[in-house]
C-alpha cells in the first residue's frame, strides 16, 4: 500500500479559527494508508515546506495531501516542494479547507467534519495518482505566414524583425492582397499603395523573409513547435531566378483579351503578365488558360523576346517541404457574390459596380487612369447611388449574417472623394445604420455629410432598373420621410459583403484549426486570446478571423507576431502533463473524441494488433498528441468505450473522490 502524508495548515487563524486542525490531522492520520499526519501554522512558509520535505524523505512518502487554501493559490508551491524532496510533483493533492470550508462556515464542528471529509477525498484521489512528467518538445525557429496581404506582410515583418526566419505563402503571383487594389484609405485619405508598397519591398529585401508567391499549402502535419508543411509552387512558366521583371514579354504577347483580375475584370491584360507595376516579386507569369503556346504549341513569342531566357514552357508544379514552429493564417477575404441579388441588376448593367471595383475606377493605376468614368460608356457620372449592407446582416439563407464592418467607412470615403473631385456629382447613400466606432471615424462620416454634402438616406434600395437612356432607375425607400424614391443614377455602387477566402476552409482542415459557420477562423478565446487559434501553434492575423479595417488588421497582425515571437523564442515547450490519452486496446476508432477536441490533438491510424490467439487484427485507433492536448477532458466523456482518460483527473480518481465525499 502507498504511504501517504497529510499536512494540515492552520493558515494562522484563517483555518484554525473555524476548523479544529488538530482533530483533522488526527482523524486523517487514522486512514489506512496515512503514515504521517501533521498540522502546522503556515504550510506554505519555508519551515512549513521543510516539514513536508523532511516527511517525504523520512517516511518515504508516495503521495501527500495538503489541507490548506485553494489549489489555485498554492498547488504549485507544494508541487515544487515535493519535487525538491524527490517526490513527483503530481503526487500532491490539495484539500481546499479554507476558501471552501473555514471561510464559509461558522460552526466549528460542522467545518471540522467537512474538512475531514475533504481530506479523505483528497487521500482517496492521491492513492490513485500516477507520477506525471511534463513532456518536452523542441521548437523549430521558423514561422510560416499563409497569405501575403497586409495582415501577412505585417506579421512576417514583425517576426523577421525579431530575428526569426519567416516564409510567406501567397497564392497569387504577387503579395499585396486587397490593400494593393485600394485607392485611398480612411479616415486619413492617404494613398493605399504609398503606404503598402514600401512594406512589400521590405518583405522582399528582408533576409529573414522568404516569399513563396503563386504557391499554395498542400499539406500540414505535426504540432506546435514542429509543423511540417508541404508547399505547392504552381508553375508560372517563368524562371524566377532569371526573370528581371522588365516587362518586355507582357508587351509583345499577342493574347490581349485576358480579363485583368487585378482590375477586377474592368480591363484586359496579356496572357503573360505582371499583376501590377509594384508587384513583389516583380516576376512575370504565364496564364496557362490563355497562352497559345501552352494551349496548342503555337506562338513562343515571349520566349523569343526574353533577353534572359527566363521563359520555360515545360515548367511544372514543384513542391517544397519545410518545417515550422508556428503557422499564421492570414488568408484574408473576398467580395461576396452580389449577382444573386437580382434586384440590384449587377449582371444587367456595367454601371452597377461593387465598392472594390469603384476603388479601381478611382485609382490612378486603374483602368481609367484615376478618372471616374462609367464602365458602360466611359462618360462622367453625375448621379451616383451607394447601397449599403448588400449581402451583409442577412439571415443565413439570404447572405451573410454578420456586419462586414468596413463598408460604412469606405462608402463615406468614396462619397467624400467623389464630391471633392467632381463637385457637380450628386451622391446618395442608402443606409440602414451608419456604424462608425473607431478613432476619428464618426467625425469622418459627419464630414462627408456636413462638408461634402453627401445625401444620406435612411432606407434601402428595392430595385434597380436600367433605362434605355443608359441611366439607372434606383427605387428605394426613405424611411424618415416615409416615401418611396426614384433616383435616376449614372452609377450605382454596392457595398458588397466581405467573406472569408474560399480556400480558408480547406486550410483550416489541414491546420485542424476550428472555424465558425461563416468560415471565419475561431480564436482560442474571444476576449483573452484573440490572435491564437484553439490549436496550439496556429495563429490568426487579419480578416480571416473576422471583418476588420486596415488599422485593426495591422494591430492584430503585430499582436499575432508578438505571440509567434514568444513561441519561437523558447527552446523547449513544456507540456501540461494532465493530458488525455487513449488506451489502444479499448479504442473503437469511432472519431467521437476527435469531433469534440477543440485543439485537433487527436489523430487516428490503422494499427495492427497481435491478438492472444496469434492472429493479427488491424484496427483504427486514436492517438492524443500530448504536445497539443490542453487537458479539458471533453474526449473522455465522448468516448463510449472509456478508452480515453485524462491524466491527473482520471475516471477512477474522480469516482474515488465522489465515493469519499458521499460516504
Amino acid at each position: 500500500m502507498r504511504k501517504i502524508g497529510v499536512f494540515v495548515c492552520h493558515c494562522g487563524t484563517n483555518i484554525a479559527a473555524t476548523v479544529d486542525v488538530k482533530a483533522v490531522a488526527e482523524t486523517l492520520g487514522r486512514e489506512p494508508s496515512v503514515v504521517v499526519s501533521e498540522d502546522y501554522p503556515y504550510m506554505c512558509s519555508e519551515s512549513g515546506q521543510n516539514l513536508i520535505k523532511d516527511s517525504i524523505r523520512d517516511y518515504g512518502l508516495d503521495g501527500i495531501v495538503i489541507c490548506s487554501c485553494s489549489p489555485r493559490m498554492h498547488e504549485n508551491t507544494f508541487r515544487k516542494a515535493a519535487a525538491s524532496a524527490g517526490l513527483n510533483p503530481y503526487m500532491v493533492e490539495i484539500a481546499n479547507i479554507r476558501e471552501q470550508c473555514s471561510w464559509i462556515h461558522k460552526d466549528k464542528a460542522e467545518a471540522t467534519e467537512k474538512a475531514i471529509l475533504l481530506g479523505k477525498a483528497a487521500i482517496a484521489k492521491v492513492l490513485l495518482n500516477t507520477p506525471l512528467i511534463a513532456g518536452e518538445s523542441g521548437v523549430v525557429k521558423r514561422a510560416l505566414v499563409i497569405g501575403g496581404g497586409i495582415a501577412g506582410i505585417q506579421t512576417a515583418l514583425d517576426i523577421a524583425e525579431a530575428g526569426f526566419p519567416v516564409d510567406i505563402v501567397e497564392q497569387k503571383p504577387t503579395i499585396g492582397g486587397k490593400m494593393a487594389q485600394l485607392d485611398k484609405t480612411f479616415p486619413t485619405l492617404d494613398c493605399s499603395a504609398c503606404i503598402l508598397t514600401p512594406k512589400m519591398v521590405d518583405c522582399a529585401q528582408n533576409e529573414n523573409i522568404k516569399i513563396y508567391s503563386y504557391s499554395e499549402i498542400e499539406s500540414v502535419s505535426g504540432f506546435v513547435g514542429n509543423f511540417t508543411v508541404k508547399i505547392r509552387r504552381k508553375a508560372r512558366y517563368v524562371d524566377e531566378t532569371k526573370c528581371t521583371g522588365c516587362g518586355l514579354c507582357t508587351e509583345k504577347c499577342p493574347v490581349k483579351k485576358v480579363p485583368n483580375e487585378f482590375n477586377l475584370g474592368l480591363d484586359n491584360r496579356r496572357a503573360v503578365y505582371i499583376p501590377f507595376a509594384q508587384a513583389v516579386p516583380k516576376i512575370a507569369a504565364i496564364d496557362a488558360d490563355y497562352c497559345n503556346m501552352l494551349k496548342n504549341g503555337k506562338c513562343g513569342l515571349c520566349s523569343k523576346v526574353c533577353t534572359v531566357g527566363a521563359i520555360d514552357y515545360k515548367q511544372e508544379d514543384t513542391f517544397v517541404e519545410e518545417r515550422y514552429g508556428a503557422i499564421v493564417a492570414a488568408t484574408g477575404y473576398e467580395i461576396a457574390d452580389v449577382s444573386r441579388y437580382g434586384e440590384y441588376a449587377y449582371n444587367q448593367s456595367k454601371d452597377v459596380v461593387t465598392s472594390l471595383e469603384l476603388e479601381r475606377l478611382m485609382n490612378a493605376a486603374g483602368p481609367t487612369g484615376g478618372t471616374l468614368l462609367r464602365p458602360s460608356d466611359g462618360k462622367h457620372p453625375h448621379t451616383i447611388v451607394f447601397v449599403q449592407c448588400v449581402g451583409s446582416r442577412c439571415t443565413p439563407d439570404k447572405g451573410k449574417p454578420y456586419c462586414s464592418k468596413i463598408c460604412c467607412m469606405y462608402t463615406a470615403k468614396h462619397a467624400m472623394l467623389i464630391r471633392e473631385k467632381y463637385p457637380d456629382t450628386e451622391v446618395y447613400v442608402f443606409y440602414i445604420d451608419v456604424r462608425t466606432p473607431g478613432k476619428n471615424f464618426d467625425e469622418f462620416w459627419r464630414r462627408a455629410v456636413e462638408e461634402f454634402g453627401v445625401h444620406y438616406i435612411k432606407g434601402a434600395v428595392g430595385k434597380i432598373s436600367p433605362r434605355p437612356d443608359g441611366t439607372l432607375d434606383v427605387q428605394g425607400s426613405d424611411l424618415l420621410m416615409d416615401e418611396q424614391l426614384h433616383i435616376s443614377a449614372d452609377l450605382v455602387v454596392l457595398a458588397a459583403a466581405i467573406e472569408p477566402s474560399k480556400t480558408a476552409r480547406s486550410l483550416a482542415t489541414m491546420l485542424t484549426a476550428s472555424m465558425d459557420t461563416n468560415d471565419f477562423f475561431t480564436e482560442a478565446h474571444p476576449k483573452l486570446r484573440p490572435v491564437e487559434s484553439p490549436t496550439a501553434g496556429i495563429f490568426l492575423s487579419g480578416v480571416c478571423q473576422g471583418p476588420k479595417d486596415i488599422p485593426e488588421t495591422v494591430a492584430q497582425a503585430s499582436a499575432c507576431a508578438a505571440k509567434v515571437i514568444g513561441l519561437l523564442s523558447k527552446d523547449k515547450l513544456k507540456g501540461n502533463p494532465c493530458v488525455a490519452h487513449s488506451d489502444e486496446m479499448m479504442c473503437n476508432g469511432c472519431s467521437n473524441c476527435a469531433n469534440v477536441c477543440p485543439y485537433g490533438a487527436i489523430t487516428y491510424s490503422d494499427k495492427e494488433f497481435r491478438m492472444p490467439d496469434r492472429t493479427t487484427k488491424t484496427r483504427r485507433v486514436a492517438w492524443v498528441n500530448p504536445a497539443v492536448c490542453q487537458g479539458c477532458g471533453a474526449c473522455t466523456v465522448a468516448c463510449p468505450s472509456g478508452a480515453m482518460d485524462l491524466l491527473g483527473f482520471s475516471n477512477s480518481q474522480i469516482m474515488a473522490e465522489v465515493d469519499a465525499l458521499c460516504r
Partner: protein
Amino acid sequence: MNDLKDRVVRMSGSRVERCMRCGKCSATCPSYEDMEYHPHEFVYLVERGDVEKLLASESIYKCLTCFACVERCPRGVEPAKVVEAVRLIAVREQGKNRLKPDDLPALTDADLPGQALATALRKYAK
C-alpha cells in the same frame, strides 16, 4: 403579447422581431404609393402590437401579394405574409360581408390590377 399581435404572428408565421428596419420591403413595393401604411410599417406596427391601426386602414387591400418584399427581405421577415394575416383577420371579422362574383362587374376598375381582384375574391368567397 397582445391577442391580435399573437394572431397575426401565428397566422403569418412571420418573425417580426427579426426586422432590422432597413426598409427594403418598402423600397421594393409596387403598391407603395397607394398605401397609407407601408410594408415596413406593417411589420413595425405588428411588432409594437398596434394591429388595430392596420385593420382600420385601406392599406391591407392595397397589397398585391406579389411577394417581392418576401423575396428581398434580407432578414426573412416576410412582410407580405404579415399583411396577408392582417387582411385575413379583417376579412374574418367582417363575417357575412362577402364579395359575391355578381358584384364584380360593378367594382371593376381599370386601375385595379386583376390579380388583386382575384385574390380578394378568393379570400372573400371562402
